[in-house]
């Protein structure tokens, strides 16, 4: 095994592999910052260039690019409240308030460093856990994944700002909007009104660009003033403050990384749930939970560490079983086939050096992304201080072109505009946009796994699968708990008030 570790690293020490890694990382950061064009688009666009090169160099290009897009997405979440991709949603909860308070440099520094540590921890645990995790993965079926997806929905509904009821409505709306288009099971066109364009459904990145980027620009236009509430020149926090914050919260980084690794290992769950779950565990384990949502650095560290580690976890089912851990891993699977590498159990015996090359790529690409990120953070942090009159046309133009670029359809530009107006009203009336987006993401998984569960285990499948049943009970209890506690608290308060009134 030790020789495979060394061989994996040696394969990456060629000028071509190093050059490909640098190109992939720089390109990934640039594409990640553009709203809507996440790691999947970036990797897909690189696919035509992979043929005829060394496998290690090709994988360095693809994975380097993918890892860099994650940090790129975090940048827009933190600076503009516009998540570059769904997985970076949780970074808007505290990252954007930090920017508003003039701590953008600190948030970006913390984000880059947490992503590096998460990436390293994820890669190390990937190397260690390959033989252990495989049986666990095989034991979980569609019913368990269905409950996990439902759990993802209720977790974000619980954590939405303001009314829980509104959070749940936004989630239901998001799930419903995802059903527009051709039903993947019966091929029935749903809610398409006979139009050809809607047969493909509402593109998820386009909806997100509208909701966040255009919605945010409408808000900025209506409100006026710059994004940040303080003068950029008077900032007293630096990128290095963010780096120090990460090391001060080392256990949070460790916990979040393990969570990200575990979520990555589960095929199909994806990092979108991971970021939210990381945020939730950070709140519940923090000594100062009251500061979450107001611009605390812990709210940036936890999701970024999880996202960093998620890559290592996502590689496990891709390599060991040939089941992609997410959409980006599906593209990687295509690259494997193109390179003549067949993922599956034999990867861990015949191609162990390739596996360790991937582990090294994650570590080196994470380090490179962080190095570039730390250098750039100071400059990027000044962007929100720009006059909104300059920001609005710039972001609007890039967003609309980005919406068009996702599928090359003009209709998507209108969809982005409509979602922009919807997003503005959701901000105005406190309906969580994050819930709507996650609802859209998880709807497909819910539908697919429900059909599979019924086909495999019958209509009462939940009673056939004890693990899924236990997970469902836990999910119901955790969702109902805030309502019950709130009702109890109000009853106690009303009781106290009436006692005080009677006494006086």
């Amino acid at each position: 095994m030790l020789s495979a570790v060394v061989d994996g690293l040696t394969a990456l020490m060629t000028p071509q592999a190093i050059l490909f890694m640098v190109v992939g990382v720089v390109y990934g950061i640039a594409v990640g910052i553009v709203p809507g064009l996440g790691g999947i688009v970036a990797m897909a666009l690189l696919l035509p260039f992979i043929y005829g090169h060394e496998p290690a160099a090709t994988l360095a290009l693809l994975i380097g690019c993918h890892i860099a897009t994650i940090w790129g997405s975090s940048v827009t979440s933190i600076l503009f409240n516009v998540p570059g991709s769904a997985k970076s949603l949780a970074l808007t909860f505290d990252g954007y308030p930090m920017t508003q308070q003039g701590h953008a440099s600190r948030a970006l520094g913390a984000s880059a460093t947490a992503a590096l540590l998460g990436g390293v921890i994820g890669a190390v645990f990937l190397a260690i856990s390959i033989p252990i995790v495989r049986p666990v993965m095989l034991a979980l079926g569609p019913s368990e994944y269905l409950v996990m997806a439902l759990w993802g929905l209720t977790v974000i509904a619980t954590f939405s700002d303001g009314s829980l009821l509104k959070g749940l409505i936004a989630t239901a709306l998001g799930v419903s909007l995802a059903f527009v288009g051709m039903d993947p099971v019966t091929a029935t066109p749903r809610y398409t009104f006979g139009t050809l364009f809607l047969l493909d459904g509402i593109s998820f990145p386009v909806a997100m660009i509208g909701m966040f980027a255009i919605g945010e620009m409408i808000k900025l236009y209506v409100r006026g003033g710059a994004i940040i509430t303080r003068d950029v020149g008077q900032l007293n926090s630096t990128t290095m403050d963010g780096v120090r914050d990460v090391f001060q919260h080392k256990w949070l980084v460790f916990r979040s990384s393990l969570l990200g690794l575990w979520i990555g290992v589960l095929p199909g769950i994806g990092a979108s749930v991971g970021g939210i779950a990381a945020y939730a565990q950070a709140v519940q384990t923090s000594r100062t939970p009251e500061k979450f949502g107001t611009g605390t650095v812990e709210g940036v560290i936890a999701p970024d560490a999880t996202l960093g580690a998620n890559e290592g976890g996502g590689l496990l089912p891709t390599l060991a079983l040939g089941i992609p851990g997410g959409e980006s891993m599906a593209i990687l699977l295509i690259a494997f086939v193109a390179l003549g590498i067949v993922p599956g159990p034999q990867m861990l015996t015949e191609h162990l050096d390739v596996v360790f090359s991937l582990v090294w790529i994650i570590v080196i690409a994470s380090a490179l992304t962080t190095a570039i990120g730390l250098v750039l953070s100071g400059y990027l942090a000044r962007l929100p201080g720009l006059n909104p009159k300059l920001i609005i046309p710039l972001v609007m133009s890039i967003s609309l072109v980005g919406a068009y670029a996702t599928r090359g359809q003009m209709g998507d530009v209108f969809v982005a505009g409509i979602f922009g107006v919807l997003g503005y009203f959701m901000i105005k009336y406190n309906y969580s946009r994050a819930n709507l987006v996650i609802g859209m993401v998880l709807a497909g998984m819910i539908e697919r796994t429900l059909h599979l569960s019924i086909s495999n285990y019958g209509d009462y499948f939940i009673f056939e699968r004890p693990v899924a049943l236990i997970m469902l009970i836990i999910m119901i209890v955790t969702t109902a708990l805030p309502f019950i506690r709130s009702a109890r608290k109000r009853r106690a308060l009303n009781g106290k008030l009436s006692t005080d009134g009677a006494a006086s």
Partner: protein
Amino acid sequence: MSRRAQENIAVVLLIALFAAMIVIGMDYTPRARLVSFPVAVIGLGLALAQLAWQNFRSADDLHVDALQILAGRSEKAMEETNAPRPKAPKGGGFTAELAAFAIVAAVTTSFFVFGALPTTFVFCTAYLAWSRQSSWLRAALIAAVVTLAIWFLFGEVLGIRIDRSLVGPMLHRMMN
């Protein structure tokens, strides 16, 4: 219009949307509506509950801070938190909202009719000049840089066809 009236209109629109989804969904096969139908019903139920909640309970009951409840943070701790929360827009004027929606509608329509690059150039120039951010010449220069950057990133680096428009083929035919 009062805040509550606005909130009521918003939730009534949601009720109408979920109701429409239920009615339309009735035509689909049981397998095709297996998930979409219950979700629309749940959405309708939640929206009706929200409508009742915001009209029959006091304004204080409208907001439940889940973080406060789950994390067990007290009212006092909340008050002690000195960092300001990000604020939702305060409805900043109906005229400003209408203007913003008109801009979005105009830009998206122009994008469809004239294409990405001409729209970007004209929109950026017009916005910067009319908002008195800069002179027409300076606005045109900035817009040209933005348009070139978009052309380079999307058209050249990412290889996306950004010359499509409604009038483009018509102009091409006229010129030939």
